């Protein structure tokens, strides 16, 4: 094994130009795959296509003719019931109906959604505002008509009359951003006192997609540039900056080229592959370079120095990345398709980075002409040497301190709140977040969930006991502060009853028998389009759909509403033969959150076992395996404990980050332990071996890695999308804690448990 790798290295330093040339050719092959990129921003794809809840959601959408919806809110401080505002609403609605990709038939607005009204003894089914009212009296009549009506109030017009919304169903989610831009053009032409808010999950998701592109294209290279600067500041040498960056970027290019070329879509998860891969690839090269520049002054021959470096490092340089790669590959066992792709391609990327470090890197080192003499780094090593002596000397105290910190952090973890909300993937001042906030103040909620009642026979829904149950359930739901509005077939039937009885308040109730309900619905359908009721009932009246509008897209809030309904049903049993089931994007989101949290936890634990076994194998000792795992455990527990204490919610990006700890933590630990043991074998003396490890190149390389990774990804904090911000911040914390635990606690642990570890 070692021989084979050494031959690879020898070949590369003997034929450096050829190796560099071949590397460029292969890179070009991968680079030409890039234009084939397909972006996928649909959080639904976090679930497998055949996941039962997803299949049900699809059926509900088909059955009830529900499309993805964009919501446009139009607000005016002194109310929208002014002639000019109403004219604008009319113009904008008309404009929206003409946009291609908008399902014009299903648009909901003051001008197109049918209302049932009685006027001069005549029953009238028509939109409240077919033509803009001329006189104040007509405007007042319009205002009364909609605010008096549960089918419009808090849904299409806010209860204080200050805003109106237009619900725009679109043919597919991936045109949401484009249609949103066309709607913007429509309202930007108007110059009145109104404010406009464009919201809805499809817009958020699609905008996220287009911004993801920007982030990938901007933040990742920015991180790269900053990494180079940090490198240069630390090492003061261009020859130290270029090779690691080249290896990191080529690994990313090959991996992403491979991913795109093999037909996978770039999902939110896989878009983070470059960001994860870079530090892992860089760590490898920093070890090689640190050792190289330590050995070069001693032998003064590049070829000999490189051979000496690889002779010493081949084992840890092989085991550390392979362990990490196997760990990531283990994510393929997770039940979440994007996580599988993510895990597998990071593993592939790590192997590529390792391969490039064994071939392209030594070739590059041969070609670089060094002009300045190499000076040994002194200060860093002195400090690290001192830390090593301190930790070893006061080993028990240090270990104890670590244990206490661990306990505190573990408590922090118990305070973690699991929550996510795709709209919150945008920063708080982003137009989408602003629109979302304002619109949810204005109307009953932009997060639309569906509660579906299913029966076994046709026409069951029209039965008085079923209608009555729905009415009571809706009443209960509306007492929940998160629920802004509920609408169902019950509201339509009640409205018809009310209008037929000359708008007598006492008749705003459900009829007592099924035939009356049937005839009311028939009457309603006689004067409206055939699919007018499709959003509320299926075609054979076997299923009914209650629209539950939530004011918050937080998974935690949706979960609370779901529990609320469960409890209600326990206390108030459903009518015979009726079943209920949730659907809609908010419900889908809590489902994948559950899968994600549990799935990631399971996958991570599984991965840790694999890493542990690999460490035991390569150290040929259970005890060393345990000690090797500890920096990982520390880093993760500290980081998550910190998140718990800060009060940040545990969301998708944070869950993903836990796997990153693995990549960094085990690299540091494997290098430290294997090189310490090498030195211990040579010196047979604990203090001296530790001095050589901590005061010498190994600790310095680890320290440099921690510094580079921690600082280098800081620009991500400036990204407009919070998952990138989170990952950037978390990188810092993880790198810092992994470095600290490796460099401070490992010497202390080795000192404390020298009997079992070193048999002395």
């Amino acid at each position, binding site marked *: 094994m070692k021989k084979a790798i050494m031959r690879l290295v020898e070949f590369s330093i003997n034929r450096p130009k050829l190796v560099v040339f071949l590397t460029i050719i292969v890179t070009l092959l991968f680079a030409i795959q890039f234009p084939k990129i397909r972006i996928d921003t649909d959080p639904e794809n976090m679930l497998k296509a055949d996941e039962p809840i997803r299949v049900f959601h699809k059926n509900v959408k088909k059955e009830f003719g529900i499309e993805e919806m964009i919501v446009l809110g139009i607000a005016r401080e002194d109310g929208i019931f002014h002639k000019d505002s109403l004219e604008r609403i009319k113009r904008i609605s008309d404009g929206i109906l003409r946009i*291609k990709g908008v399902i014009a038939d299903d648009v909901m607005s003051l001008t197109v959604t049918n209302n049932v009204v009685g006027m001069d003894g005549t029953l009238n089914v028509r939109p409240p505002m077919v033509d803009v009212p001329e006189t104040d009296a007509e405007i007042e009549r319009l205002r009364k008509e909609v605010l008096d009506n549960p089918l419009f109030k808090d849904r299409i017009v806010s209860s204080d009359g200050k805003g109106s919304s237009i619900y725009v169903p679109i043919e597919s989610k991936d045109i949401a951003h484009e249609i949103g831009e066309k709607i913007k053009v429509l309202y930007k032409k108007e110059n009145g006192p109104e404010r406009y808010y464009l919201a809805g999950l499809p817009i958020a998701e699609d905008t996220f997609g287009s911004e993801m592109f920007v982030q990938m294209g901007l933040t990742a290279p920015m991180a790269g540039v900053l990494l180079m600067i940090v490198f240069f500041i630390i090492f003061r040498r261009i020859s130290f900056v270029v090779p690691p960056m080249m290896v990191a970027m080529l690994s990313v290019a090959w991996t992403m080229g491979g991913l795109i070329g093999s037909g996978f879509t770039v999902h939110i998860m896989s878009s983070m592959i470059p960001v994860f891969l870079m530090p892992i690839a860089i760590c490898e090269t920093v070890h090689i370079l640190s050792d190289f520049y330590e050995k070069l002054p001693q032998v003064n021959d590049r070829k000999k120095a490189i051979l000496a470096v690889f002779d010493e490092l081949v084992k840890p340089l092989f085991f550390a990345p392979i362990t990490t790669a196997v760990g990531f590959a283990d994510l393929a066992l997770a039940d979440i398709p994007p996580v599988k792709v993510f895990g597998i391609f990071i593993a592939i990327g790590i192997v590529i980075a390792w391969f490039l470090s064994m071939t392209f890197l030594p070739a590059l080192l041969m070609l670089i002409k060094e002009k300045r003499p190499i000076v040994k780094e002194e200060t860093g090593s002195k400090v690290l040497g001192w830390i090593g002596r301190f930790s070893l000397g006061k080993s028990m105290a240090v270990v104890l301190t670590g244990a206490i910190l661990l306990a505190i952090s573990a408590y922090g973890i118990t305070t973690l709140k699991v929550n996510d909300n795709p709209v919150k993937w945008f920063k708080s001042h982003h137009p989408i977040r602003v629109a979302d906030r304002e619109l949810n103040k204005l109307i009953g909620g932009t997060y639309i969930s569906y509660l579906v009642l299913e029966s076994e026979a046709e026409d069951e829904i029209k039965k008085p006991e079923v209608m009555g149950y729905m009415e009571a359930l809706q009443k209960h739901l509306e007492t929940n502060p998160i629920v802004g509005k509920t609408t169902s077939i019950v509201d339509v039937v009640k409205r018809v009853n009310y209008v*037929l009885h000359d708008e007598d308040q006492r008749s705003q109730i459900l009829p007592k028998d099924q035939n009356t309900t049937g005839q009311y619905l028939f009457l309603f359908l006689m004067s409206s389009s055939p699919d007018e009721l499709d959003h509320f009932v299926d075609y054979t009246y076997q299923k009914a759909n209650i629209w539950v509008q939530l004011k918050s897209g937080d998974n935690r809030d949706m979960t609370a509403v779901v529990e609320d309904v469960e409890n209600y049903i326990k206390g108030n049993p459903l009518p015979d033969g009726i079943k209920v089931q949730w659907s809609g994007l908010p419900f889908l989101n809590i489902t994948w959150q559950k899968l994600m949290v549990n799935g990631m936890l399971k996958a991570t634990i599984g991965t840790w076992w694999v890493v542990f076994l690999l460490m035991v194998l390569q150290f040929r000792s259970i005890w060393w395996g345990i000690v090797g795992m500890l920096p990982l455990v520390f880093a993760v527990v500290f980081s998550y404990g910190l998140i718990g204490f800060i009060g940040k919610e545990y969301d998708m990006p944070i869950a993903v980050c836990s796997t990153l700890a693995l990549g960094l933590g085990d690299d540091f630990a494997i290098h430290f332990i294997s090189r310490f043991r090498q030195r211990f074998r040579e010196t047979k003396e604990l203090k001296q071996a530790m001095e050589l490890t901590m005061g010498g190149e190994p600790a310095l390389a680890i320290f440099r890695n921690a510094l580079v990774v921690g600082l280098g990804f800081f620009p991500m904090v400036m990204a407009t999308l919070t998952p990138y911000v989170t990952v950037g911040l978390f990188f810092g914390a993880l790198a810092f804690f992994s470095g600290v635990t490796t460099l401070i606690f490992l010497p202390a642990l080795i000192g404390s448990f020298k009997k079992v570890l070193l048999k002395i």
Partner: protein
Amino acid sequence: MRMIRTLFLIGAFLFLGFSKICSAQEGFSAQEVIAKSRLAFFYAANDMRVKISMELINQNGHKRVRELTMLRKDYEDGGEQKYFMYFHKPADVKDTTFMVYKYPDKDDDRWLFIPAIDLVKRIAANDKFSSFVGSDFTYEDVSGRKPEEDTHHLLRKEVLNDNNCFVIESIPRGKAEYTKRISWMDENNFLPLKEEFYDKQNELYRQFEAQEVKEINGIMTITKRVMRNLKTGHRTEVVFQEVEYNSGITDDIFSERYLRKAPMEWVK
């Protein structure tokens, strides 16, 4: 020289004369075809009695069935008409009746009787474009539209299922449910065999098709028709059974009294 000029003039006259005769043989202007079609389709005979079965089918293939008897009486060709409808199905709306007075120059009058609460309610006719009893047909599709409301233009002649047809494009002059309509009118009986409706996005969204034409009492009648909404995937299939013409439907049928208690001898 003079000879040549004379011959040329004769030739020119002959040519013009022929073309004039030809266009006469071609028949009618687009406007005339549309007017004739309206009479053939909506004003056949003086009265009509028919049992209609209507299937409303959504994109998932689920069906809602309407079964009704319709009585129609004309008061003037191309002018006033009265309709009376009695619903047999669906079961929970049995005995519901519906009556329409159609006027050429003003909004319809419509009344509905709701048996469950024993109430006759006038229903507003805001526009002729709303759906007819929840089907894909609009009221206008069922009772016709005045030819003057559109600008008509003969696009071409075409053979459609072995029938020679005029293909006419109609663009509304005022407010309408469609932005463009293209109709295939049978040259022999002027019945519309196919119609295409374009929406505000200028996309084809509704399509009418006559699927069966039969001669009944000497009158060519479309007995099977379908209207498809291409945007929603919804369609309505209509079958005419027991068609009778000129059976002498009396005026008093079209009254509130019969609305409350349907004339069983007519609607059975």
